[in-house]
């Protein structure tokens, strides 16, 4: 009964973690998940709030309005993505 939180690339380095698992009933939505990460991670959580960081829920990008509203459930995967570039 948990939500997986993933950090990629520069965020993984800044947060110092690749993945955190949180109890699903303690993070019912994204705002509560962010608040929980602020407590859990301390100062480095500020990197997650940078405007260039995008959030994906179950591998789909969320826009800011979406992110504020979305509820979370057991098995969900939340990923924090710094700016992407391929090729």
């Amino acid at each position: 009964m948990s939500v997986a939180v993933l950090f990629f690339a520069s965020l993984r380095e800044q947060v110092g973690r690749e993945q955190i698992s949180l109890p699903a009933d303690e993070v019912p939505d994204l705002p509560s998940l962010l608040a929980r990460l602020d407590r859990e991670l301390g100062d480095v959580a500020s990197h997650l709030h940078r405007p260039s960081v995008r959030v994906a829920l179950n591998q789909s990008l969320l826009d800011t309005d979406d992110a504020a509203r979305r509820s979370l459930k057991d098995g969900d995967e939340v990923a924090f993505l710094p700016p992407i570039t391929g090729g």
Partner: protein
Amino acid sequence: MYRAVRIQHEDFDLGAETEQLRAQLAGRIGALSVFVGLVREQFEDSAVNGLHLEHYPGMTEQSIGRILDQVEQRWLLDAAVIVHRVGTLHPGDQIVLVIAAAGHRKDSLEACTFMIDYLKTDAVFWKKELLADGARWVESFDTDYARVKAWQQKDA
């Protein structure tokens, strides 16, 4: 349209990839366009020791799939292939392979250019340049966004 997307650590063989497509599509295609991106030894004034690439398995493939969806809608193609490497690469190494096979050269050339342009801005990868004077995470350039914007306006 035949489509293939592969994310891999291993190097790719441009000759083998195009031979396979040619065998598969012999006589149907008149134009084959290929783009290969490679690691350069120099970034601005710094020597490049290497490049570290990472991806988000699943989401990265989806992001490339959406690029191919657009390509398929805009051009008449027989095949579109994207092979993208991850892991640590060195100067001279191949990073990405893009192939567009079509009846005619306009479709093939434009689709190939479109794919590499969109890979720069829309594909879920991260790149860390290992420079002689430290590492830095690469971001898309303003010119990359400008090129994608130009494609969107051409749409209309």
